């Protein structure tokens, strides 16, 4: 678990430096101690497979993922603004079930967060053993699992699988 601690130490130290921008000598010395304390106390919980941080391909997929995510996020805002601004409030809400093949904690967290921030969907609960996510959908277009999965999950899952699995 020493690798996990090292990764957390680096991340915590970088976050500390950004928080006290522009860092001087005092900040850096204090930062080393704080990051050390954090990584000793909570390092073993941070990542399960620290060697993933060494894979360059995962970072490239992440860079590819960010603009797609931001664009979906923007579309979600237009969509909600339209529904809220329309005089009749055109919504057909409901909670549907979608299937996911992701297994890792980080992957599932990112998938659920992406679902929440994309058009009309909000993840409510997750069934890890069977791989189901329950999603509140403001405009239910498909009640069965396959149709909903296709419309909500697929576009993110194929990228997130390459980043986190």
């Amino acid at each position, binding site marked *: 678990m020493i690798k996990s601690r090292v990764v957390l130490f680096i991340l915590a130290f970088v*976050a500390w430096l*950004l*928080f006290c*921008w*522009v860092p001087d000598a005092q900040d850096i010395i204090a930062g080393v101690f704080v990051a050390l304390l954090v990584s000793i106390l909570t390092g073993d919980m941070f990542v399960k497979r620290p060697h993933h941080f060494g894979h360059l391909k995962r970072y490239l997929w992440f860079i590819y993922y960010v603009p797609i995510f931001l664009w979906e*996020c*923007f579309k*979600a*805002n237009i969509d*909600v*603004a339209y*529904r*809220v*601004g329309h005089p009749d*409030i055109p*919504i*057909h*809400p*409901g*909670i*549907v*079930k979608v299937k996911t093949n992701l297994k890792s904690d980080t992957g599932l*967290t990112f998938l*659920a*967060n992406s679902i*929440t*921030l994309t058009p*009309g*969907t*909000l*993840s*409510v*609960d997750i*069934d890890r053993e069977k791989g189901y996510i*329950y999603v*509140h959908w*403001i405009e*239910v277009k498909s*009640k069965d699992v396959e149709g909903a999965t296709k419309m909500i999950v697929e576009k993110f899952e194929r990228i997130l699988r390459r980043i986190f699995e």
Partner: protein
Amino acid sequence: MSNIIGIIFIAIGLVFDFFGCLGLVRLPDVYNRLQASTKCVTLGTCSILFGTFLIVGVSATGVKALICATFLLLTAPVSAHALARGAHKSGVRLWEKSVVDKYQEDGELK
């Protein structure tokens, strides 16, 4: 130049924040309200913070604004998820015109 772009970003953020709050008032039940408030307010506030960064540049304020935007993007969906799950578990039903509730049918995972 970056001043003008920053002000445009802040204006877009304000419009989205406004629609988020309007959704909070107009939509029928807690889940739909969460939808409106999470999406619009998250991206609206991130947009305001990014506009601030463009105006002040890479300084103490600007870098903190960027970090705040990142943390907001990471944490707002988690809190929305927690609120929705907690509401459903403590017995808040969906709006009566809702189409389907698979979560209820599966007996709310323990």
